[in-house]
């Protein structure tokens, strides 16, 4: 099962096939910021890919439209992905997402 590294806390989150990074985190009891819980409405779950982009499935047109249309532009960076849509193919992906906390 692929493992994603989440900075700055350096957490190792296991992601099942077909599952998004945020879904995997919620399922395992991590706190991952959101307000819409996977509806692609809030963009609060957005993370920045900092390494290992090859291990992630590319963003769909829907996800890109949500980032472009719903996310304040000063929060957008190259490498911004919605964690609720970010699917992982392999080990090696590193993302930065402040506010993610390990299961209590």
């Amino acid at each position, binding site marked *: 099962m692929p493992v994603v590294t989440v900075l700055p806390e350096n957490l190792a989150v296991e992601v099942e096939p077909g599952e998004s990074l*945020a879904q995997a985190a919620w*399922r395992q009891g991590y706190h991952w910021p*959101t307000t*819409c*819980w996977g509806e692609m409405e809030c963009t609060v779950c957005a993370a920045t890919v900092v390494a290992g982009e090859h291990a992630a499935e590319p963003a769909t047109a829907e996800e890109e439209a949500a980032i472009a249309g719903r996310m304040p532009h000063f929060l957008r960076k190259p490498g911004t992905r919605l964690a609720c849509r970010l699917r992982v193919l392999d080990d090696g992906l590193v993302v930065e997402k402040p506010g993610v906390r390990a299961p209590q």
Partner: protein
Amino acid sequence: MPDNTATQASAQHNIPHAMSAPHRVPKERYYDREFFELEKTRLWPRTWQMACRLQEIPKPNDYVEYEICDQSILVVRQADHGIKAFFNVCPHRATQLAMGAGSFPGGQVTCPFHGWRWNANGTSSFIYGAEGFAPECLRDEDIALRECRVEVWGDAVWINMDANARPLAEQLQPAAGRLEDVAIGNWRVKWWQETILNANWKMAQEAFMEGWHVMRTHPQLTLGAGEASPAGSLRYDTYPNGHCSFEGGSLDTDFHSFDVMLASSQLLADGLDAMAIERDMRVLESVRHKIGPDDTIRAAVAREMRAYNEGAGIPMPAGIEQQSLWWNGMVFLFPNIFYLPMYGNSLAYRIRPYNDDPEWCRFEVWSLTTWPESYPEERAVLRGRFDKDDTDNWPLIPIQDFSNIERQQRGLHVQGYQGHRLAVDWEAGIENMHRELDKRLARA
């Protein structure tokens, strides 16, 4: 006179356009607003209805919204794989919490308005802005999602909005047993799609309670027999609780000829992709030179079907070929579900009022089949909503049925029409359904 009889008699008096003369159905039952409103208050909120197939919510947190008239229910798969159903409304300011089908990631049902949240089991998990409310507005028991009764039968989830309803098994008996005898629990979705019809929901479904419309509506199925094809070739039964059935064959009677059997099955495989499917055609074709001197065609078909199913790992309970429904037939479950089984497959229908309008309905069709045991369980998804005359997306047989249904609804309004007159021998199921409906509507 006992009290309950008196109550019933006086309540009965209050139903507009009630069933009275035998074998006649008042036309107003299909378009009258008052009658439709009575169904909305006395039938739908108090009857068990099929809300979704289990395959639509295979994983924890998967949900389906079930709509009936102006009501909306969320059916949610739980972490322990059990099922709960909730009235689909935020207790704050009435927002519907979810629509269609999907899953609740993280097991959180969230209101899209102010972000209040519930766990998939309906308990409140977060009240944004709670500090701004008077405490008596936020009592746990008022804020938890309100549950609706749920039972599972026939690989499907059934709901009842009435907390005091009798158990599902009581409502479905005795017809449910007929379907259990042909292993309804093994049927899975091959395809599923729907259309919207300009007809009352009862008008639409009555088209499928009898088989004698085949001669004129589906002429191809008589294989050229035309008007010589007998109207009374099926056995019809009515049951308590509004159910009915018909069936066509049994091991004691044989097909007229191997070629007629094969051609009829091929018409279903080509014209419907249901009841008989491609897989069955290969087996049926292989029977031609395996009919022994002491065999009937049916005995040979049953034997070869069993051999194929055993080899393929497709469950086929012992003795199922003794059931005439295994060969061909229909079971209607009141108020609005149909199964038409054949060879471990079944066609199925669900018919609901649409857009709060007595003259429109939503008509769903499933092709169900029994898969090999090893077949992966995938989420069943509606293939789409297609126009009733869309030949790219509907097979010939339903297109033929749909076109009559809308013509009937228009005919109801034509001057001089006196209401339905039903065949005693072949259409008693329709009358039986209406009489059960009146019983439900009479209960205050």
